[in-house]
């Protein structure tokens, strides 16, 4: 069993206004890159040892989506915040989604290519086709940067099917526009 990718969905946003004000000098950029992959454990019942397929599939899916994220945002130096998420279809255990993104085999691909050092924030859940996949992001080098706690969402209208998992990484060009949260 090797990784089977049905499609790659890339959602890039250029945000020019927020809260009624213009974002200067450049729009704020976010991007989510999601691969629609076949759930490698679909139909196998309860699988105790997920590791063999994690070793095979987790780095493979990261190699599909992480370089694309860098390309879309203009390189590692243009990415200040990052995160990851997985949304399993009806036939997936949440553990299947977690298995694809929660190991170093996946995370290190994003850390290395984006030049990040921190752990990554994430969501893992199960949902219907066209469910909202939400990616929480934090600053790639310092999780205490509160302004870099940002969120990007994406909907793929025909995924994840019952036997699929949507695996995503996301990046943002900077802190939230007009970040002005103060206090401890």
């Amino acid at each position, binding site marked *: 069993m090797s990784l089977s990718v049905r*499609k*790659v*969905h*890339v959602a890039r946003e*250029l*945000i*020019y206004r927020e809260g009624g004000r213009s974002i200067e000098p450049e*729009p704020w950029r976010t991007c989510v890159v999601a691969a629609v992959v076949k759930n490698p454990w679909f139909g196998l019942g309860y699988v105790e040892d997920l590791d063999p397929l994690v070793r095979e599939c987790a780095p493979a899916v990261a190699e599909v989506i992480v370089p694309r994220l860098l390309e879309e945002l203009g390189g590692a130096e243009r990415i200040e915040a990052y995160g990851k998420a997985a949304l399993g279809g009806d036939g997936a255990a949440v553990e299947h989604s977690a298995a694809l993104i929660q190991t170093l085999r996946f995370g290190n691909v994003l850390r290395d290519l984006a030049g990040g050092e921190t752990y990554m924030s994430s969501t893992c859940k199960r949902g219907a086709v066209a469910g909202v996949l939400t990616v929480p992001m934090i600053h790639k080098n310092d999780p205490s940067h509160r302004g870099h706690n940002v969120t990007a969402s994406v*909907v793929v*209208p025909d995924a994840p099917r019952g036997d699929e998992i949507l695996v995503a990484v996301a990046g943002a060009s900077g802190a939230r526009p007009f970040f002005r949260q103060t206090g401890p």
Partner: protein
Amino acid sequence: MIPELRKVSVVTEDLVHDEDRAIDGGWRTVVAAAVIANPWYGRGFVENLSPEALPLADSLGRLLAEQVVAGLGGPDRLQAYGRAAMVGLGGEIEHTSAIIHTPSFGNAVRSVTGSKSLLYSTNSRATAGTCVTLPGTHRDDDSLRDYYMSFDIVLVDAPRDDEIVVALGGASGPRPFARLGNRAKDREAMAAEAAAGKDDTTGERA
């Protein structure tokens, strides 16, 4: 810069595997959507929409076409396209039509893509998070059945009540594994059936 513009969202999909088989070279679709403030929001019934609509049509047509062409990798890579506009609950469907159903919009798009066909479209009103569906046709010849396709995009926070989403989609080629023949073949088969005395063209026996 377009003063009404809040954001531009561009969704690119590379479909590589479908119907249990690999797609040679993949099939790329790009949908670019602009979220703008509805210039007629809160003004009641406005008789003449052109003063606001025409400049927006031109600038949005150009902006969206440039995004779609860039996403596909050049004007020649665009083989099919279509458009749509969705207004928030505080607007009229006519507000969407005013922007996209003008030669200003289509000509701006075609000036970037170098294509010839009219753009098929949908116009709708909905809440934020609703799927916007764009009907697609071939860039130069809208009789080509293999290029009838649809593009979807969902913006989770748009359109707000006072906004309009204007979208343009493009594809790198015909539907993957398109195999529905064409009009000429249909006519030939129907003529043969009629000659054999089993005219099924109306769905009923002749």
